[in-house]
Structure formats: C-alpha cells, structure tokens
C-alpha cells in the first residue's frame, strides 16, 4: 500500500490551507525592495565611476538624470543640472559644432554608439575637454540619449607630448629605426628611409635588419649584441635599395620593459661616407706633404752643401769677383733659410693636424734636420 509519512501529508495540508512559511498572497513589495536595493547598489556604482554619465531626453535635450561624477566635474548640484539641457554645458565656441554633430547623426539607427569630443564648461568657467559616447535608448516608450563623458585633459597632454616625440623622431636628420627583438622593423623615420633609398618609410616595416647591411650577417650581429649588452656603437657598410653600399655609423640601444625584458631595439644611423672619404684624402695628403718636406730638405742640403764649398773657395781667393760670389751665396743661403723657415712652419701646422689626426708622421725626424734655424724662428 502506498502511503506518505503522515508528517509529509500534514505539511502539505498546512501549505494548502495557506499556513506554510511561503504560502503568501502575491506581493510585489518584497521584490520591489530587492529591486530597489539592486538599483541603489547600481546607482552607487555609477556614482563611483570616473565617467560622467548623462541621461538626456531625446526630444528636448534636457537632462533627465546624471551620476554624481557629473556634479563633481561641473560643480552644479543634481537639482541644478536637471533644469539644464546638455547643450547648456557645452563651451560656447563648441556649441555650433556639437549641434551639427548631433543633427548629422540624428537619423542613425537607435542603439548605435557614436563618439565625439567636445568641451564642457563647469560652474566656475573651467573648460574640460571631454570624449563623449552617445547612444539612443528607449525606456518605457520614451526616447533618451545616454552620454558617457570622459575627461580627456590628461590624455590630450599625453597625446601632445607623444606627438612632439614622434615629430622629433620623424624629423631627425639621423636615421632612426626601431625593430623587435628578432630584428623585424617596427618603425623607420623619413631620414632612415631616405638614407637607404626608400621613398616610403612605412614600406620598411616588417623587413629584417640584415637587409640594410652590405654584409647581411652584420644585422644579426648587431641584434645579438644589443640583446646581450643593450648598447652598441659601430661602423658598417650599409646597403641602399638600389644595391649601392655606403658607410654608416650605427648607435644602438635596447628598450627594456619593467621586468628587464627587451621590448625592442632602437638604432640611430648616420651616413659617414663623406667623413670616411675625407679621412682617406687627408691621410693621402699628409703622406704627400711629408714626402714633399723630405724632398725639400734633401733639396736644401743639395743646394747648401755645394754653396758652402763655393763660399769656402771664394773666401780663399783674392779676386774682385770673390766678394760678388760671397754676396750671391749669402743671398742664395737666405733664400734657402727662408724656405727652411716656411717648411718648418708648415711642419708645425702638419704636426698640429697630426696630433688631432691619425698620429703617423715623420715630422719630428724632419724638424731636426734644420739645425741652423734659430730658436726664435720656430
């Protein structure tokens, strides 16, 4: 025989009679209280957010509701704000543009989001640049616009700083290249592109570093070195788009994240072809100059030695022409002495240049050959 325990049946009967714990007539009040509590919690959340939230009557533009952040930003009480239209809060010089923006988008599909920037004015006249996301919504058959505004003052400053930095990078006369740790190019400035014969800097993005060196292995070496030591300065031979090589100096550093991991590498590249050629020319000139000084010293010796013999003979003979010979010899010696002085000055200049140049010289040796030059002459 089927039978439930009497207690169960009694409990059911109590409920049917209406005496159970939850045998209650329908009441929306407890649920209403729950929903109100939920709304209050939600309201508290909205008031805590850094965003200013506006609910606007779509037809009139009047504010229907605002969160506490709006009052904090603009300095008006909520009561004051609810007597204003949204456009009242927009800076005078931005009103026309904002109205035009709203007008153009008024036929958009309900529910779609739009973002614009404008300037709101607080009670004390402070202008606050805001980025505003607007969306049309319908509650209880009425159309509203929600506007969520973010203060973008700091963002604009940061963007300005970033733009300056970007401009500095972009306008640098040195080539600047940023690559990821594998050597793939992330950014190259105009100067870099021009240096390597590329019309568009953006076209270089994605290429590997090795493509810019006559010896592709150099690109890998630089990358590897930077990942190990985080800095490098070296000269190399670059390779233009057309395949022509040229001399470059590469200064590189590694950009690290907070954990010390490499984020990217940055190279500053200078075209040093002219410098290299100039150094080469200078070296050749110095060599030629040294050779010439040496030859002139030999020439001086070759003239002065016979001249000393001639002077010796002329002093020994008694001849009316002897004096004339001596005069001419002294004149020639004067010329040579003058030449010696000139070359000595040239040698000093050369010595100075060499001191700041490659250091290889035979000037010292040459100088001691002009023993007859007086101290004041030097």
């Amino acid at each position: 025989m089927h039978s439930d325990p009497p207690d169960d049946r009694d409990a059911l009967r109590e409920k049917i009679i209406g005496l159970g714990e939850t045998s209650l007539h329908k009441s929306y009040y407890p649920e209403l209280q729950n929903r109100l509590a939920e709304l209050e919690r939600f309201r508290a959340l909205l008031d805590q957010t850094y965003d200013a939230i506006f609910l606007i009557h779509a037809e009139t533009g009047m504010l229907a509701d605002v969160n506490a952040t709006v009052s904090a930003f603009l300095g008006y009480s909520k009561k004051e704000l609810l007597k204003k239209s949204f456009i009242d809060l927009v800076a005078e010089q931005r009103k026309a543009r904002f109205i035009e923006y709203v007008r153009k988008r008024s036929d958009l599909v309900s529910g779609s989001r739009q973002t614009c920037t404008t300037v709101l004015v607080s009670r004390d006249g402070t202008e606050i640049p805001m980025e505003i996301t607007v969306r049309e919504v319908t509650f209880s058959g009425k159309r509203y616009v929600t506007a969520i505004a973010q203060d973008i003052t700091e963002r604009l400053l940061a963007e300005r700083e970033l733009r300056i930095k970007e401009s500095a990078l972009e306008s640098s006369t040195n080539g600047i290249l940023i690559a990821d740790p594998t050597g793939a190019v992330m950014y190259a400035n105009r100067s870099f592109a021009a240096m390597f014969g590329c019309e568009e800097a953006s076209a270089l993005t994605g290429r590997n570093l090795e493509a810019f060196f006559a010896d592709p292995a150099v690109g890998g070496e630089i990358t590897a070195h930077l990942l190990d030591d985080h800095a490098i300065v070296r000269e190399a031979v670059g390779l233009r788009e057309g395949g022509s090589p040229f001399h470059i100096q590469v200064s590189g550093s590694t950009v690290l994240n907070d954990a010390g991991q490499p984020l990217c590498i940055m190279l500053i590249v200078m075209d040093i072809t002219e410098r290299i050629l100039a150094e080469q020319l200078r070296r050749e000139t110095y060599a030629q100059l040294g050779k010439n000084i040496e030859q002139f010293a030999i020439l001086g010796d070759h003239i002065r030695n016979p001249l000393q013999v001639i002077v010796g003979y002329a002093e020994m003979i008694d001849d009316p022409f002897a004096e004339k010979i001596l005069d001419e010899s002294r004149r020639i010696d004067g010329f040579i002495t003058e030449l010696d002085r000139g070359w000595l000055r040239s040698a000093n200049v050369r010595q100075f240049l060499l001191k700041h140049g490659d250091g290889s010289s035979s000037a010292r040796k040459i100088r001691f050959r002009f023993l007859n030059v007086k101290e004041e002459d030097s």
Partner: protein
Amino acid sequence: MIPRNQLDLRKFVAPEFICGRGALELAGRYARNFGMKQVLLVTDRGVRAAGWAGAVADSLTEAGVSFTVFDAISPNPRSRQVMVGAEVYVAEECNGIITVGGGSPMDCAKGIGIAGSSRRDILGFEGIDRVSVPTPPLICIPTTAGSSADVSQFAIITDETRKRKVAIVSKMIVPDISLLDPEPLTTMPRELTVDTGMDTLSHAVEAYVSNASSPMTDVHALEAIRLLTSALPAAIAEPENLDLRFSTLLASLHAGLAFSNASLGAVHAMAHSLGGAYDLSHGRCNALLLEHVMAANYGAASDRYDRIGAIIGGGETTPAERVAAFRRTLGITETLAAAGVREDAIPALAAAAYADPCMVTNPHNLTCEEIERIYDDAL
C-alpha cells in the same frame, strides 16, 4: 478522518472581482490601472471566434493599452504551450497578462506568468508553494462557469511527455482581478455548459468535505451547490438567459472561493490523472467520478455529505445517488469505459492520483487500492 474544530487556523484568500453585465468591457481600464503597457492577451481560438477576445482587445485599444494575442492553446493546456507563451511574453516585452476564456487559457496564462517571471520551465513548479517570484499582474475574464481558475490558487498543466497533469498550487497565482461577465457564457455549447457545471459542483462538494474546509469556505461551497443545482438545468434549457447564466457564474465564483482556500479531494486528484492519460474533458471526468468518490468518502464526512444531499434533493437515498441522478438529468450517462479508459490502466491512474496534491485534503486518507476500486466502480 481529521477532526474539525472551528478554532483551527485557516486563511482565506480571494482576488478582487467585479461581476455583472459589462464587466468584460472594464478590461482596458483595469489594465491601465495596473500600469500595463503591453499586455499578453491569452485566449484560445474558440473564444476568439466567438468574439470575446476581440471585445477585450477593443477595450484595451480604447484605454490606449497595446497587446499581443496568444491563442495557441488546446484544452488541457500543455507545458510546451505555456513555455511558448512565456517566450512570447518576454519577446514582446509584456508587463501584464489578461486572459479571456475557460479553464485552459486561464491555467495557461497563470503558467505563462510563472515561467515568464522566473525564466524557468513551468514543470519545475509542480506542487505547493513553489512559486517565489511574483507573477505579472493577471486579469481573468472567464467565458465558462466551472473552472474557477479566475479566483483560485491552482493551475493545472499537462506534462505531455509523461502524460499526466501537473498541479501548481500557490497563492502567488491567485489572479489580481476577475471580471465576471455573464454574456460570454451565452455562446457556450450545451456539452461545455454541462461539463463546466459539473466541474463547479465537484469543486463545491470537495471543498465542503475537505479536511481543510473552514466556516468561510463552507458558506461559499454550500451556496455554490445551491445555485448550481437550481440554475444549471435551467441554463441548459435557456442558454441565452443572462440571469441563469449569471447564477451559474456566481455558483462557479462561490465554488472557486471555497476550493481555492479549502482545496479539493480525490475526485480532482483522480480526474487529473485521467485527463493527463486520456486527454479527456476535466469537467466530464469529475462528473463520472464524483458519486463514486462520495460513496467511498461518506464514512469520513457523512454529516457534510448528507447536507449536500439535502441541498441537491431528489428521492434517492444517499447523497452520492442524488449526485448521480443530477448528472443523468444533464445528459451525462456514460461511464469511464465508454470514455475510453481501460481496466488495465487503473493501477497507473491510481498511483498518479495518489501522488496528486488534491488527495491531501480528501476527508478520508485513501490508499492506492481504494483509489483503484473507485476507478473500477466508475468504469
């Protein structure tokens, strides 16, 4: 038998109701007063064809209340139909339900309210006091006089998968307002008038003998029996007589107030089991079972049954026989077997009836074997 004492705790819950000619036309006004902006108008195709759903729609339109009609409802409404209705309710962003029709649309509307508010399957609410989320405002406009769903805390939904009826009992689903207009009753066919009338009588009898009855429910139960037994045969004879129809409507209202608070008994428990398995008319099932249950229960509430018998009147000796005679005068002469019930199905039917919540308030604590015997007697 549970001893009765008038000092026992009892509760009486009733909705606000307006009865009289033209009550239906107040639908729009009350919808607006309840703050309904978008109404789900729950009905069935028969009621729609009879024009009563249209009359309610006109009232809503006049009051400036929008509505969506949901009429995909069969007799003995299925859980699937409830869930489809709940989907429509949510999709159409409705905030109130008006139902116009008999017990099926009204029970379905209650189910839609439960499922729509809780967003859960309706079958999960089977039993007593399982509804915790308040349902949306519900206005009922009955077009039959029998189910009393317009005032009761019951909703009976068919679990089509398991072929059984599920009773959802909760004071949360007592309608917010009932508009009792006799005019829609005039389009009821004879058979429906008879079946719903016998449903009213069953409600009243079972509420009166219920072990949860109270002095308050007794008043309504006895008045329902008195009104019904006098007005129903005449209303069948004069279907367009508004006074007679109104008497049957009042009888249904009294019976509803009685059974919604005192609950029911074995007749309904067994009828739910039958209706779930055979998709039979609920009122007809009650009519075929009532006298047999009365006979089985008699010893547990003889004085009450005797009082019922006295109201029904007639020359028969027992109250059960008087009810049987009344049934026959209405033209209900068949048995359960004639309705298609097979003898070998009785154990399963009895088991389902035994588990039905209505059985809890039957005056006699019937065993499964006793329930089987009652089915057997009615066969």
